[in-house]
Each structure stands twice: as structure tokens, then as C-alpha cells.
């Protein structure tokens, strides 16, 4: 892997504890991840709109990590918005949630989620998950150039 490679991820997550956990899990990966965090779906959409303006302050994410249960716009609604947007629909969105429900899994794949991961309870497990996800998305898969 090209160690100079760095990627931008957008985390859409309202829970501060989970934000911290994800940040820590991404901290010492082989690849340099710039993690941008927003707390709601609405904020996520505003961030992405700004990223389309190429102002440099809000880099376009290579991958989005999305919680499902958030106050206001939930994760699925956010996902629907992204996938209906010509400019944003090419960004893979991975669901990262506590929900284990079969209905949620089905609906998210229907809305073109690029993976559905159930949040593990500890940072070590999450590190492993992030490491495997990074390997798949950034070492093996090509992505649309930002």
C-alpha cells in the first residue's frame, strides 16, 4: 500500500461516546485517515453541499460512516438523499449502528448502503473492523477520484 495515501471519511453520528470510539479506532491505522465528524443527518448534508463547492475547507469524503438512529433526519433518510444526488451518489456509505434488525439490514442495502456493520462494544473490535474495511475500500477497491 502507498503509505503516503490519505483518505477522508465523514462520520455521521450523534453519540459523543461513539464518535470518540470511532476516532480512536481510526487513529493508528496503516492509512492516514482524516476523519470529519458531524452529529446529525442535516449537518451531514450541509457538509457535503459545502464539499461540492470545492472550498478546500470541507474535503469531499472518500467514504461515509453512517449511524441509523439519530434525532431529526435519521440515517436512512440521509442515505436516500445522498443516493438521489447526482454528485454525491458515488460515495460509498457504510452503516455503523447498534441495530441488529433484519428490516434495517434489508432497507439499508435497498438504499444502496455499501456495507452494514453492527457497532461492537469495545475499541479493539472496532479497530479490527476499521482495519478490514480500510483494506477492502482503500487497498483493494478503486474509488471515484475526488
Amino acid at each position, binding site marked *: 500500500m502507498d503509505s503516503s495515501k490519505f483518505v477522508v471519511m465523514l462520520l455521521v453520528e450523534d453519540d459523543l461516546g461513539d464518535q470518540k470510539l470511532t476516532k480512536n479506532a481510526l487513529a493508528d491505522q496503516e492509512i492516514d485517515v482524516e476523519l470529519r465528524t458531524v452529529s446529525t443527518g442535516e449537518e451531514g448534508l450541509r457538509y457535503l453541499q459545502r464539499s461540492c463547492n470545492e472550498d478546500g475547507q470541507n474535503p469531499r469524503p472518500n467514504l461515509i460512516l453512517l449511524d441509523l438512529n439519530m434525532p431529526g433526519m435519521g440515517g436512512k433518510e440521509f442515505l436516500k438523499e445522498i443516493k438521489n444526488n447526482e454528485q454525491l451518489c458515488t460515495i*460509498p456509505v457504510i452503516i455503523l449502528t447498534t441495530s441488529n434488525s433484519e428490516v434495517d439490514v*434489508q432497507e439499508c442495502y435497498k438504499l444502496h448502503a*455499501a*456495507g452494514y456493520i453492527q457497532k461492537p462494544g469495545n475499541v479493539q473490535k472496532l479497530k479490527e*473492523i476499521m482495519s*478490514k474495511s480500510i*483494506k477492502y*475500500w482503500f487497498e*483493494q477497491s478503486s474509488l471515484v*477520484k475526488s
Partner: protein
Amino acid sequence: MNTLKVAVILLVEDDLADQKLVKRSLSQAKIGNELHIVNSGEQALEYLQSSKNGDAQTPMPDLILLDLNMPGMGGQELLRHLKADDELDIIPVVILTTSDSDKDILESFKLQAAGYIKKPVTLEGFHEVMQVLSEYWFVICKRVSHDNEHKNKSNQCLISGR
């Protein structure tokens, strides 16, 4: 983690040598899987139609590996069909191709591919790709349950539509 359930993979690939490479690599991956192979987009649609009809010989795949350049219906056209189908649109489709053109990458993600992998040139490369892919899709990610769960086979390879 879903390691106990055998993952069904449908490979849509016209090149026999590449079929063999994928088959070998998947059988070495430390994750149980059942590989089905079809040679064209048209055959893939036939396979999936018969999955919909509940034919046990053609279980609904958990993942589709799709080549882009095939005679007849190309990979992107098949992907478009799959994503427009109310029953099949939940299956993640990973592109596996020799093309690394930006246009193909963009077009495939626009059509909601769940990954775009350039075919490695070595056997070791194939092994690594299949290991990483299996771990991501079948260990890390939850999958949609199909009615295939009565199956309890592992590392099988079945070639359909010949």
C-alpha cells in the same frame, strides 16, 4: 459475525482462466463460501430468475462478483438491470475487471456497485483480494438473510448454465 453461515457468491465472468483464479482463491479464503459461476450477463439473469423462483440449485447470492467486459450483455448493463429489480437490488455487486479507466469506475459507482476491484495479475494477488473481500462482506458486514440458510456446505464450486 456471520462466519457460520455459508456465503453464496455468484461470479459473472466469461474468461475461463479468471473463473479458475477466483475459484482457487475463494477456496483458500478462510471463510466458508459456495461459488456459482455463469459465463455471461444473460446467464446471470437466468440464474437469478431461477433463484427468485426458489430453485435450490441456484440459491440467491449474498454477493455478486461481476466482470465488465463480456460479449453480449456487458457488466454495466447487467448491474443496471439488477439495481432496477425490486428483489435483486439488495445484493451487493462488486466489479472485478481488468479496466482501470476512471470512466468505468465512475459509471460503476453511479450504478451503485459495492466496490470496484481491478483484477490482480498474480495468483497471490487474487488470494489477497478474495481474502480481504470475504472478510469485509462475510465477517464484518451483516448480510440480508435469504432462504438459503438450510444449506450447510462450504467451499463448493458449481458451474451453471454450461
